[in-house]
């Protein structure tokens, strides 16, 4: 198929940037979206132009690197996939595809479609851990039985790949689905309960500091999340946060 791509080009963090049109042809429907981008870049290099910079790594939907806003949606029109798993069979011959970076004040653009998501890391530095040493001499893994239900629910929250689609999709650029998932994973497990009060307070404080917007429960994040992280995690974080503040 032949496509027209409207892509955000921006030389660097301080450059103003603009949308630029490109044409690609002979795209197979079996290609992944990033393989289509590879075709474009190969074409640009052969024309002596600078290729489009975009984040990507594992190309199997788990590392959370890829981050494009495609036709008005994070990771494009398909559900439950990252951009690298999005396949061209979702598009038609002659389509015009708009490709933009994830936009948020807390995700400044580095170049073209590459954004800086280190704000997510700083939130995790603030409390995304259980304070056990790494000696391995803690206690036997089966010493604390954990109900299958709690373990499964914690796993569902822990599935978050930290790609930032939630922030990109949210009209408020809120990070609450991400932070909610990280808080929930530990809140659901007995090992994590011990520091639960400090954890939620510190992580929320850091989230607020980073300049993310506030959640207004539109639910866009849940729909666009490639890993299907549930809004329940935000509700849980809200509860945890209230109780943490009452306890203090």
């Amino acid at each position, binding site marked *: 198929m032949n496509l027209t791509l409207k892509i955000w080009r921006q030389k660097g963090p301080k450059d103003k940037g603009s949308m630029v049109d490109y044409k690609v042809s002979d795209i197979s429907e079996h290609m992944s979206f990033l393989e289509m981008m590879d075709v474009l870049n190969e074409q640009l290099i052969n024309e002596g132009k600078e290729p489009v910079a975009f984040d990507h790594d594992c190309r199997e939907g788990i590392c959370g690197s890829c981050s494009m806003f495609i036709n008005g*949606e994070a990771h494009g029109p398909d559900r439950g996939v990252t951009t690298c798993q999005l396949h061209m069979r979702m598009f038609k011959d002659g389509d015009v595809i708009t490709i*933009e970076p994830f936009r948020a*004040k807390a995700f400044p653009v580095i170049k073209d479609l590459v954004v800086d998501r280190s704000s997510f890391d700083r939130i995790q530095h603030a409390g995304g851990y259980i304070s056990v040493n790494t000696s391995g001499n803690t206690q036997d893994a089966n010493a604390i039985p954990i109900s299958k239900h709690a373990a499964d629910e914690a796993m569902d929250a822990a599935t978050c790949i930290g790609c930032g689609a939630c922030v990109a999709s949210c009209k*408020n650029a809120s990070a609450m689905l991400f932070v909610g998932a990280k808080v929930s994973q530990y809140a659901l497990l007995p090992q994590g309960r011990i520091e639960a009060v400090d954890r939620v307070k510190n992580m929320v404080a850091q989230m607020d500091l980073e300049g993310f917007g506030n*959640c207004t*429960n539109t639910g866009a994040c849940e729909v666009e999340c490639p890993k299907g992280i549930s809004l329940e995690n935000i*509700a849980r974080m809200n509860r945890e946060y209230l109780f943490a503040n009452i306890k203090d």
Partner: protein
Amino acid sequence: MSGFFKSSIGRKYAMALSAFFLMIFLLQHFAINILSVFSPEAFNEASHFMGTFWAVQYILQPILIFGVVYHFVMGFILEAKNRSARVKSYARNNGGANSSWMSRNMIYSGLAILAFLILHFIDFWIPEINTKYIQGDMSGLLPDGDYRYYEELTHKFVSPLRVGAYVIAFVFLSLHLMHGFSSAFQSVGASSMRKEKLQTFGKAYAILLPLGFIIIALYHHFNH
């Protein structure tokens, strides 16, 4: 709890709590108004009680005003903050693919409700305050000895323009509540988004209550 209401989540709670209060107030307001359709006397009695009972006037009324003002002011503050969280907007944003129109436009339905409230205050609240607290007439009576409330109410619904404005405002209220009801529950951590019964109840509330207000307005418009 220091700093709680300054945090993002604390403000969500505050918005939700003021919303709960306003939603209960709306129910109460509706319960009294609907009396006007069935029994002008009962409506007059209830209005007079609400208008003169000290606890309503000096405790609930200030709380209500605070609740309304808080909900609006905080709504605007959060909207401004949320807008600033995305410096550059998308060239193409397909919000309809992942969220409802109502949820994305609470500020606009809210603004429409605010405009309505101003009209409503000019229509009812300011004259009430004038009569009762400036002119000092706490009797609630017309010169002919009847209660004035029903008379005033029906008088306001003569103009088709005003009735039209009321109807439009209630449509916006409905849109606001369509998202606001379940959103408030989600904000306080009640996971309403996943509870089907609560969702259905919220939808019913968001549609039936404003519809009821519309019916009252139309009823009086066409009956007098």
